[in-house]
């Protein structure tokens, strides 16, 4: 035993002071935090976010701030100019436009958000299944999507509204029937790319269930694309509702959406411009903010992802 071998005595216990883990020079940053930093540095996006939050708050409380109710007729005060009593003026039935505009913003936002949620739910599940299983399942579902996609959306929407009578629910349903396909295709594309990555293989060889792999590994990694798609879905659903309003198939009075308000005012645009301006500016502002924020979010979540 001439060679020196390690002996127990060669080791000494560390003192408490010496027991310091490796020093991390920079704080570790999660992907989310990183995105948040990037988003925060994007001034335009942040301003948009703040404006959006304000719009949402006003949409919730706006109609209660006004001294007038959104549905009370006052035939002695029709088409009034904006004044200290009616801040945004009144409409053809003497209803307060301030209350109606914010009420309308609320409905428009709800249509947008619910439609986006349905798209999210259905689109992610179907898209996930297509992307994950591939092969026959993908083939069949994809064909199904393609058929749905080739139906003129105008037909579906009008038919549904005619059959089910116009209401917010019908409108959301009609918009979502074909709306989710885009989401499904985006998720499918993402998942297809992701599922061949090593960490998925690792998870699979460790015996993780498909559902676990899907929701623990794949969906979180595709979330950037999903969120961006949603920020685009909300405004397009709001627009679609406005389009329906133009055809007289929008939300039914006395309730109102920004679309129906604009459409009501369109014919009298030159005489009672205030009836048009407030809701039109509000819908454009909402769109603008959603778009800028969506762009910012995309840049923040994945600077490389450009589509």
């Amino acid at each position, binding site marked *: 035993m001439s060679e020196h071998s390690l002996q127990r005595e060669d080791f000494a216990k560390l003192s408490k002071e010496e027991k310091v883990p490796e020093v991390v020079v920079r704080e570790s940053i999660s992907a989310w935090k990183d995105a948040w930093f990037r988003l925060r540095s994007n001034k335009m996006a942040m301003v948009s976010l703040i404006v959006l939050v304000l719009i949402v708050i006003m949409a919730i409380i706006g109609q209660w701030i006004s001294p007038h109710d959104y549905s009370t007729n006052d035939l002695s005060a029709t088409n009034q100019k904006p004044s200290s009593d009616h801040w945004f003026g009144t409409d053809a039935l003497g209803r307060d436009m301030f209350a109606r505009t914010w009420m309308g913003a609320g409905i428009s936002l709800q249509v947008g958000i619910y439609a986006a949620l349905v798209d999210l739910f259905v689109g992610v599940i179907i898209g996930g299944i297509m992307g994950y299983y591939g092969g026959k399942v993908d083939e069949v579902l994809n064909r199904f999507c393609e058929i749905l996609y080739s139906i003129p959306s105008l037909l579906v929407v009008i038919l549904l509204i005619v059959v089910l009578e116009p209401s917010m629910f019908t409108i959301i349903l009609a918009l979502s029937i074909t709306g989710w396909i885009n989401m499904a295709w985006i998720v*499918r594309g993402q998942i297809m790319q992701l599922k061949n990555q090593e960490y998925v293989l690792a998870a699979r060889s460790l015996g993780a269930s498909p559902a676990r792999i899907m929701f623990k590994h794949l969906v979180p990694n595709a979330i950037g694309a999903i969120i961006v798609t949603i920020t685009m879905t909300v405004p397009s659903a709001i627009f679609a509702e406005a389009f329906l309003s133009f055809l007289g198939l929008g939300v039914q009075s006395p309730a109102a959406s920004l*679309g129906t308000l604009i*459409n009501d005012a369109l014919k009298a645009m030159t005489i009672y411009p205030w009836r048009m301006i407030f809701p039109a500016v509000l819908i454009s502002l909402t769109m603008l903010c959603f778009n800028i924020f969506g762009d910012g979010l995309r840049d923040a979540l994945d600077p490389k992802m450009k589509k």
Partner: protein
Amino acid sequence: MVRYVLQKLLFMIISIFVLASATFFLMKAIPGNPFQSEKNVPPAIQERLNEQYGLNDPLGVQYLHYMNNLLHFDLGLSMKQQYTSVVDVIKNGFIYSLQLGIFAIILAIAAGIVLGLIAALNHRKFLDAFTIFLAVLGVSIPNFVVAAGLQYVFGVKLGWLSVAGLNDPTDFILPVVALSFLPAAFIARLTRSSMLEVLTADYIKTARAKGLSGRIILIRHALRNAILPVVTYVGPMTANIITGSVIIEQIFGIGGLGKSFVNSITNRDYTLIMGVTLFYAVILMLARFLTDIAYGLVDPRIKLSRKGG
């Protein structure tokens, strides 16, 4: 390639069949009939009309009858526009929608690419921010507001252009501009982002290193590659514009197909609803199909037999 095309075509036929069936039953589920009016016609006459149009047959029989006709490319006669075949109604309306759509798409591509280029070449400068702001604004205003505004300013206030109709070549200007607003804005953003990507790519740097002039690099190399995503977007967009111009048609008083389609549903003009639906579907499918092909031609990395998502 041939196999792929055949496969696609076969699938299109199946899709049309499924779509026709679905539309048929959905349409029949709506209450009402083509002969309704505020004042009802006597039941005996109503009955005879139903008989003549085969509306008294069981739904299944009506369906088989329609499908059989469809197989022989017979879309039937419109029930509301009397003695006029569905094909004629589509032809009469589509000619306008098509013209508007094509002009709008050309304008959108031209304006979109130019704006996108300006933005990309002035990255992070004032012009960039300005064009992007314009582009975002373009997708932020409902198109009926844009259309009504254009009509009022240029038609009524300034009196430069007529407010409606398509009697004069200049009459196309307002509806085409209104129609191209949104896609132009979209293309501008698309072009900007892909241009920015391309400009930092290696082959551009190589070209620069070779000493090529800025303009040649821009046109020969950068733009051609940057336009790729735009090309793939053009197909479906064209289809959407052509099939979705109903609002613009209404505001500018143009008798396009969109108007006929909306009216056909109100009128319960069953043969016309079916005809236009199938026609639109074929356009949408063809647009997708051509896009796929174009995609494959443009980008050799994509194998046509299997789409890569």
